[in-house]
């Protein structure tokens, strides 16, 4: 028995030693995502899109002096505790130069506040959409390639009003994402003289939400707006609302635009379900990315893949520009995408590297947008409302 343990321990040691040897002299960028938890179904494609950017960098001569760029994956579990743990490990143990992520707003706020801002590490979240992130006192180290939910909530409210939804009930998850989105939606919907007939937060992970739904339905609305995650509680709520006939129509935010509701509930039951989500504006950059991501075996229509790719590629550019100096990454990030200089499209690493070496200004045009950050590190965005068709989500209307 004892010798077996020693053999296993020895094997593990050897394995870590091997991993350590190859990782030497690599430049690391953290990829902190909600690998487990309520957005688990979205995370793999987001991480693979970011890895694609690193792969392109490595294929085209590597970063700095030909060093390899490595994405270090960490699991934020989509909650503040997990985000802090993963960021601590990435910053203190892996020694990353910058971080793509975390994926969820609560994790971003916690990880930034307690780990990355004190350490001066730049983070770019591809999917942390809470309006709270805008106001973070971040010494200019927290950016995002996804627009704030303040825009999404308002655009969704206006679009719904135009589509003839006049009286709705809102169920939102009690975290930074749900609260931020729900408040923005409520303000605009009421400003457009719509009626909110029920407005309630709920906790994650309970088995039954029927009493919550009954309470929301008692206001007399026929439409339920759900700001939650389609792989988590949002699915449970949608299922129980459908099964018990509490509401006729359902509207989701970007978190609900997941394949889980279609897979688990069936498209035939979701005829009255629509979800909003940020979309990339049609551009050459988007086409270039779509080609490359398809060739790498990914689905370019999956949610947040463009923003993840852009975040990863821009951080690679910034690290290159800063010459590997971690403290200089955030300033470099602003320089490589401020609307001035030679345009760089997704995947054009070799060209960008030469221009940076020559001291020429460059301007990254991303797949999800131009990413000219405002003072708070935010970007504006475009949204579309999706409905469930025969092959998954289909664009119904652009949202303004």
């Amino acid at each position: 028995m004892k010798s077996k343990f020693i053999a296993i321990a020895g094997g593990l040691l050897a394995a870590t030693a091997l991993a350590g040897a190859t990782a030497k002299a690599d430049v690391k960028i953290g990829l902190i995502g909600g690998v487990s938890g309520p957005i688990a179904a979205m995370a793999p494609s987001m991480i693979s899109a970011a890895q694609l950017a690193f792969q392109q960098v490595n294929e085209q001569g590597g970063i700095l002096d030909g060093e390899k760029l490595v994405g270090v994956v960490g699991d934020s579990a989509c909650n503040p505790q997990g985000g802090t743990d993963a960021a601590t490990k990435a910053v203190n143990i892996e020694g990353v130069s910058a971080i793509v992520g975390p994926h969820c707003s609560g994790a971003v706020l916690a990880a930034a506040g307690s780990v990355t801002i004190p350490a001066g590490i730049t983070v770019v979240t591809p999917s942390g959409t809470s309006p709270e992130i805008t106001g973070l006192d971040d010494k200019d180290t927290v950016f995002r390639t996804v627009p704030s939910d303040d825009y999404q909530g308002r655009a969704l409210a206006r679009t719904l009003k135009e589509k003839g939804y006049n009286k709705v009930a809102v169920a939102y998850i009690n975290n930074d994402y749900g609260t931020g989105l729900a408040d923005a939606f409520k303000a605009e919907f009421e400003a457009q003289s719509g009626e909110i007939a029920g407005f309630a937060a709920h906790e994650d992970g309970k088995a039954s939400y029927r009493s919550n739904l009954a309470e929301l339905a008692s206001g007399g609305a026929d439409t339920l707006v759900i700001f939650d995650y389609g792989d988590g509680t949002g699915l449970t709520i949608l299922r129980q609302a459908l099964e018990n006939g509490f509401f006729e129509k359902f509207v989701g935010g970007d978190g609900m635009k997941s394949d889980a509701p279609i897979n688990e509930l069936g498209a035939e039951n979701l005829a009255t379900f629509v979800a909003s989500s940020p979309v990339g504006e049609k551009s050459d950059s988007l086409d270039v990315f779509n080609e490359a991501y398809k060739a790498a075996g990914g689905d370019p229509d999956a949610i947040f893949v463009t923003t993840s790719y852009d975040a990863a590629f821009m951080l690679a550019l910034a690290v290159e520009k800063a010459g590997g100096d971690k403290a200089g990454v955030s300033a470099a990030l602003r320089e490589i995408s401020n609307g001035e200089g030679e345009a760089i499209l997704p995947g054009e690493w070799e060209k960008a590297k030469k221009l940076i070496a020559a001291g020429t200004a460059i301007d990254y045009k991303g797949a999800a947008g131009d990413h000219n950050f405002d003072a708070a590190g935010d970007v504006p965005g475009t949204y579309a409302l999706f409905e469930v068709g025969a092959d998954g989500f289909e664009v119904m209307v652009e949202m303004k």
Partner: protein
Amino acid sequence: MGFLELINFYVIPGVVLGSIYALGAVGITLVFAILRYAHLAHGDLATLGAFLALAVVTALGLPPLVALPVAMIGTAAVAVGIDKAFYEHLRERPKIVTVMASLGIALMVRSVVQVVWGVDSESYVRGIVRPENYFGLRIKDREIYTVVFMIGLVGVLQLFLVKSKWGKAMRAMSDNPNLALLSGIDNKKVVMLTWIIAGGLCAAAGVFLGINTELKSMMGWHMLLPMFAAAILGGVGRVEGAVLGGLIVGIAEELSVLVLPSEYKAAMAFVILLFMLLVRPTGLLRGKVL
């Protein structure tokens, strides 16, 4: 709000939820009574049971209720294995060591589930089921199964404890382990039996939670607190108390929405737990251990 609405949307979900909590709480209470420690891996064992049933459902195309016995046997075997591999070595140490070890086991079991089945939400049967109407009561078939199976399983367990030789041995060991040992009861076998029963009930709780909602790798962990609240509410060591406690916690959680903002629903189990520990730590049915 009408009476029927109260029953349909608050009480019935509460009873179903309570039945699931009860199945888990009975296991917790048994482990507490016989082995004298709080077993924190209980929720994740329930997750494992639910996913074992999923494996049977997807591999053989059987309905989840048929897969239930397989999952119960599988989880019972795992529970016995965990006891042999980890807890047995800690038997003579202070109990808190085993409690902490069970927290570690919880993380390990959950990780195994995540590695094998992934972290996405799954369900046994695709699509939705609308409830039947029984004289104005809206009940789904699966909700009836859940409550009936819970009562059946607990009934059989109660009979076993009262009538059979080994059941009596378990109760004897719960009353006084040293005396039981002196009168010739094989403690090791009793411990093993306890884990078989606790593991099987865990799996049943997990499978019924999966049938009524979805399967997620965190599903059992989220149930742990209500299950402990149920066990303590009913009186630790009392099987019928755990059932009563489970039902009360379940119904209280659902009814709380009527008076509290809904984001505080999850805190209901905490409140009940605190209140009972303050006012009547022995539980409603006067538990034997605490």
